[in-house]
């Protein structure tokens, strides 16, 4: 069992004084998967990452990475991981190449041909000083240093911030290659579309508590759909709000947009009885909507 688990936490809790930043977090991330860790700002994502990386110590609970204790064997663990911190900061007076060299020296065993290939793929300029780079280009240097040792576990906190769409696409490919290689990616983000594209499973955290862990496909199969109804006259939201399965209603003159997981027949019946229905469109809800739905449920 443990051979298959890349990250395991049991009752992981972190308090800052009286403030519970992380509460009783139980999570297993399997090897070879891309795991998305979702939550709004301040939910506890970064605290969780900093705890499992032994930057900060848990108030209680344990974490193991690749079968090793996150505190007792932290140095051995770091031999096998790559890390991109959120709000990445590096040494502004070093060039990108110097920065990579520095971390490669500390780590040892880095293949420079691979570093060059990563730089090519991300279109990174390693000759400029980090302080002279734009945030996106600085992020590329951060990604290279995380990928360069072909880690067994990649832990990344908001890794695609500042990257342009082309580079983001390449970065997605790189993550999938890692997973295809049997290695693991732990991707923390509040950019849901990024996680939606990359992740196999998603954990949702709020106020330090893990409120759900689901496969991306399972989440989608919860059948929350976005339904757009168009009428020949202005409509009011109160007609649709009481219907079973309606999670949210937005009305704009002749147009109603519903977040809906109930019986379509009931909805259409009410719509047709009250108004003259001109058009209808429906599509699968994206993670953004599912995410918001979860939060509404938990906060309700």
């Amino acid at each position, binding site marked *: 069992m443990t051979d298959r688990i890349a990250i395991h936490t049991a009752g992981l809790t972190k308090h800052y004084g009286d403030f519970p930043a992380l509460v009783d977090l139980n999570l297993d991330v399997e090897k070879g998967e891309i795991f998305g860790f979702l939550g709004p700002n301040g939910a506890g994502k*970064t605290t969780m990452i*900093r705890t499992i*990386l*032994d*930057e*900060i*110590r848990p108030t209680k609970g344990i974490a193991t990475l690749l079968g090793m204790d996150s505190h007792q064997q932290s*140095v*051995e663990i*770091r*031999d096998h*991981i*790559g*890390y991109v*911190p959120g*709000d*990445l*900061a*590096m*040494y*502004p*007076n*070093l*060039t990108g*190449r*110097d*920065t990579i*060299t*520095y*971390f490669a*020296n*500390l*780590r040892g065993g880095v293949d420079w041909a691979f570093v060059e290939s990563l730089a090519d793929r991300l279109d990174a300029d390693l000759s400029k*000083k980090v*302080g*002279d780079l734009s945030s996106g280009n600085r992020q590329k240097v*951060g990604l290279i*240093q995380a990928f360069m040792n072909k880690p067994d576990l990649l832990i990344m906190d908001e890794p695609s911030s500042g990257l342009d769409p082309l580079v983001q696409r390449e970065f997605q490919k790189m993550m999938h290659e890692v997973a295809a290689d049997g290695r693991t990616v732990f991707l923390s983000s509040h950019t849901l579309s990024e996680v939606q594209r990359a992740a196999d499973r998603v954990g949702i955290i709020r106020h330090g508590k893990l409120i759900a862990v689901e496969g991306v496909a399972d989440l989608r199969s919860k059948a929350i759909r976005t339904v757009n109804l168009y009428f020949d006259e202005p409509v009011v939201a109160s007609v649709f709000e009481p219907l079973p399965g309606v999670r949210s209603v937005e009305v704009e003159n002749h147009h109603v947009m519903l977040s809906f997981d109930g019986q379509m027949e009931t909805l259409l019946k009410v719509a047709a009885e009250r108004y003259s229905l001109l058009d209808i469109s429906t599509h699968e809800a994206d993670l953004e909507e599912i995410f918001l739905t979860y939060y509404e449920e938990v906060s309700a």
Partner: protein
Amino acid sequence: MLATVFTKTFNDRWRGMAIAVGSLIVGLLLAMWVYSGFEASMFNDLPEVFRSLMNIPENADAAAMSVSVFYGFYGALTLAGMAIAMGAASIAGEERAGTFGLLLGNPKSRTHVLVAKAASMVALSALAIVVLWGAAYIVAAVLGVDLGGLNVVAYAVHLFLNTLFYGMLALALSAWTGSRSLAIGVPTGLMIVGFIGVGIFPLIEGWENVGKVLPWHYLDGSHPMTNGVSIGHLLVLLGASILLGATALLGINRRDLRSQAVGTTLLDRLRESPMTRKIVDRLAGSMRVSHIWIKTVSEHQGLLIVTAYVMFLIMGVMMGPLYALMDTALFQYADQLPEELWAFVGSAGSGMSTPEGFYEVETFGMTLPAAVMVVAIVIGSRGLAGEEANRTMGLLLANPIKRRTVVLEKTYAMIALAFMVGIATWTGVWIGSMLGGLGLNPANIAAASLLGTMVGLVFGSLALLLSAVAGRTRVAVFGTIGIALAMFLINSISILNDAVESIASFTPFDYYLSNEPLTNGMAWDNLAILTVSFVVLVTAAVFSFDRRDLRQSN
């Protein structure tokens, strides 16, 4: 307090200034308490020229000496230093932090921002000096001391304009270049050269007027504490400050703003040159990042160059020939001064009539430990807390290295830089001694240099420990400086007071010049005590850093 640029700048800086002013007042209180037990007549037999040089008023109460020493010496240097820090931070500091562009995103002109920051510096300096002025009278009244003929108000006015001048110089350099290190380095260098120059040049026949080109001359050249204000000297300082303020306005409105905190080091410049690129590329590139300690040393090359330059050339090489030129007859009087007075400037009191005594007062007494301390405290505080504040510690520790490795590598960097300053001092003094024909023993110079270096390292390791415990740069810097000043004061007045003497052995300064190493060579027991203290503090830092949560930012 955050309503305007003026009030925010004031708010950012008042705590540091309050700590500095508070330390000066506590020092004044202690000094006045100790000096109040002295016979008033002890200075009366000194020749006029020497009383004038030492800023001793006629028929001075010995207690009044404490005001002269504390405000004229520590106060002037501290306030000018604070003003330099404010002036440098005002523009270059905001650029370095990346906040200047944000500030100008609001409907405020560059002129508005600069004037607001300058006004804040002026207001804070003025407030500090008013507090110091009032404290002198309050402390004197509490201790029942008569300040006699001391004109504290006149000195306060000179002190204010002197402070203003250095602040404005830093502001002008900051506004023109955007380089914080340049804006700190140049005025600080000028201040040190001025401070030393106005003390030494009058002692050299034919050079008496050379000191007048130095701005520091206009602080105390007219002896305002005894003679009242000198309108001419005040106008020089005021005129220069206004000119520098206008220069700053011109500079900030003419140049492109810096977008990031990227400094250009000497190695960077050499790296850009085709002639030196190949070798320097290796030195500045792969070698620079081969180990944490080498990278740390490289990051502080500017600080090292300035400090080593001052200690080698100015405090080392130049002092020998200067001593040879001086009227040593003056030193006969100096030697008559009680050792208690020398104690206040960090000398063991071996007198200045010998080259060893002269170098001990000028180069080794306070200067070498202070120079090493600057370097060591910077490394000690920035090494851990600085990396946390810059958010690079997490990335560094994501590599397979132990936390203790980081602490130890930072310690190696501190040792390397401190020893470079020590070696620069040793070679400079040796060369100075040879040029002046003074005949100092190189082994004894090495002994004094090593002991001074170790004193600086002990305080550097204290900064490292505070940095490891608190993770805050400010705590490490101000905590260490505060403790160092307190210990220096305790050590200085220990020979004056039995109660203090018993605790002086807990200060590193007690193990520095007490054995007069320039004359008697190395005191191995002193070296051992300083080394053990250093090792103990570093060990404590290792354990402290291993046990706490990393901070995300300061």
